[in-house]
């Protein structure tokens, strides 16, 4: 009887807490959003399951030297392997042609970093440290791997909250951006038609990958792992002689890295870590960051129009928020709502992919200054 009693005591049923149950509910909410609403399912499905696993009592997935801890500790926190590998896959899927055809749109990727610094100050106001504030602010860059990369270096204890906030808001771009866009732009501005883009040669695209790597990595060496892998993936795509490598980077490799990254991130969200007021602050600040990044991009586009002969449609400014390709699609949808023959998608994609570079640069500069 003693043995039976002892065995029962060692089951999870006897150690369950209200925190565990609440976190299971949280994981089911994210699973619902992923499956039913198609909110970033490639990330939210494994994240939600990681949350579920981490909150089963006595399983200790994240205890030192246990299964998920090994991936989390070595592949994310200590050696930072997974975000650059994912970025390589993203680079292999990205076409920088619109950026090269109209380099002015690169500046819109810078303006969309405005929200990063607004949220940074907001986080300081809420009492977060400089490192925590930087990792919360980068949510405004709307780039999951960059957010995870920076947070794992500066504030690994916020990894779960930051990553979930970043991916949730990236999925909600079609809800967050349109009201801000309509508030800050007039119908005449939204109806501006832009000239058709010129063709970009293969050599220009290859050159872009090399030049961008050199410029960004020399300015912000902290961004080198991300930026270097991003452009390596892009080089695989654009050089035309490494198709197998490009295919692997944008398929098997990114998928494997995503599975382990997302499960580990979910597994960091135990009840003790997540159920704190600071998690709510992070979600609020994430929304602030996204909103102000949209504002920054729109306002810079309008400002540029004061000096440009060939006006740019300010809608592409909001596409500087690097939720690729969702924010570019939002720009296109809103443009066509006012003028159904206005096609700005490729121009918006230029700003969109420039935003990825801008976010990597922001993260690199934060690392230079805070690490």
């Amino acid at each position: 009887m003693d043995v039976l009693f002892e065995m029962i005591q060692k089951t999870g049923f006897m150690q369950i807490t209200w925190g565990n149950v609440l976190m299971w509910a949280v994981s089911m909410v994210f699973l619902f959003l992923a499956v039913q609403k198609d909110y970033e399912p490639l990330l939210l499905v494994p994240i939600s399951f990681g949350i579920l696993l981490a909150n089963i009592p006595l399983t200790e997935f994240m205890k030192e030297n246990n299964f998920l801890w090994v991936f989390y500790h070595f592949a994310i926190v200590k050696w930072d392997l997974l975000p650059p590998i994912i970025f390589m896959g993203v680079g292999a899927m990205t076409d920088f042609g619109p950026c090269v055809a109209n380099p002015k749109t690169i500046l819109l990727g810078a303006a969309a970093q405005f929200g990063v610094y607004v949220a940074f100050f907001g986080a300081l106001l809420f009492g977060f440290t400089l490192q925590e504030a930087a990792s919360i602010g980068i949510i405004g860059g709307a780039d999951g791997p960059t957010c995870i990369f920076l947070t794992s270096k500066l504030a690994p204890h916020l990894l779960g909250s930051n990553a979930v906030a970043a991916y949730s808001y990236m999925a909600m771009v079609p809800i967050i951006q349109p009201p801000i866009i309509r508030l800050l732009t007039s119908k005449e501005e939204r109806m501006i038609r832009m000239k058709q883009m010129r063709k970009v040669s293969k050599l220009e695209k290859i050159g872009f990958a090399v030049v961008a790597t050199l410029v960004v990595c020399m300015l912000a060496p902290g961004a080198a792992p991300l930026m270097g892998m991003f452009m390596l993936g892009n080089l695989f795509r654009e050089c035309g002689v490494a198709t197998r490598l490009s295919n692997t980077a944008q398929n098997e490799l990114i998928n494997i890295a995503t599975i382990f990254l997302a499960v580990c991130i979910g597994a960091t969200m135990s009840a003790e870590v997540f159920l704190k007021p600071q998690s709510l602050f992070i979600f609020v600040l994430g929304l602030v960051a996204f909103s102000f990044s949209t504002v920054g991009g729109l306002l810079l586009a309008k400002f540029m129009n004061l000096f440009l002969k060939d006006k740019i449609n300010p809608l592409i400014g909001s596409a500087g928020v690097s939720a690729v390709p969702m924010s570019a699609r939002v720009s296109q949808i809103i443009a066509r709502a006012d003028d159904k023959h206005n096609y700005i998608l490729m121009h918006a994609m230029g700003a969109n992919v420039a935003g990825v570079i801008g976010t990597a640069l922001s993260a690199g500069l934060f690392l230079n200054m805070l690490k």
Partner: protein
Amino acid sequence: MDKGTQSKEVSVLIEWEKGFQLAFVGLSGVFAGLILLEICINLFSRLVRIIERGPISKEKP
């Protein structure tokens, strides 16, 4: 005001001062970096187009 409160206020002020410096350097660094990238890409693209254009073919719009 006791010394403990005073030093806490001073450290908060130092933190905010550093925050402003970070934000200023960070945002201007991003703009500077992307402006530099735009200039480099513009120059490189022009060079490539001159090389690829050759003496006969016209550039298509």
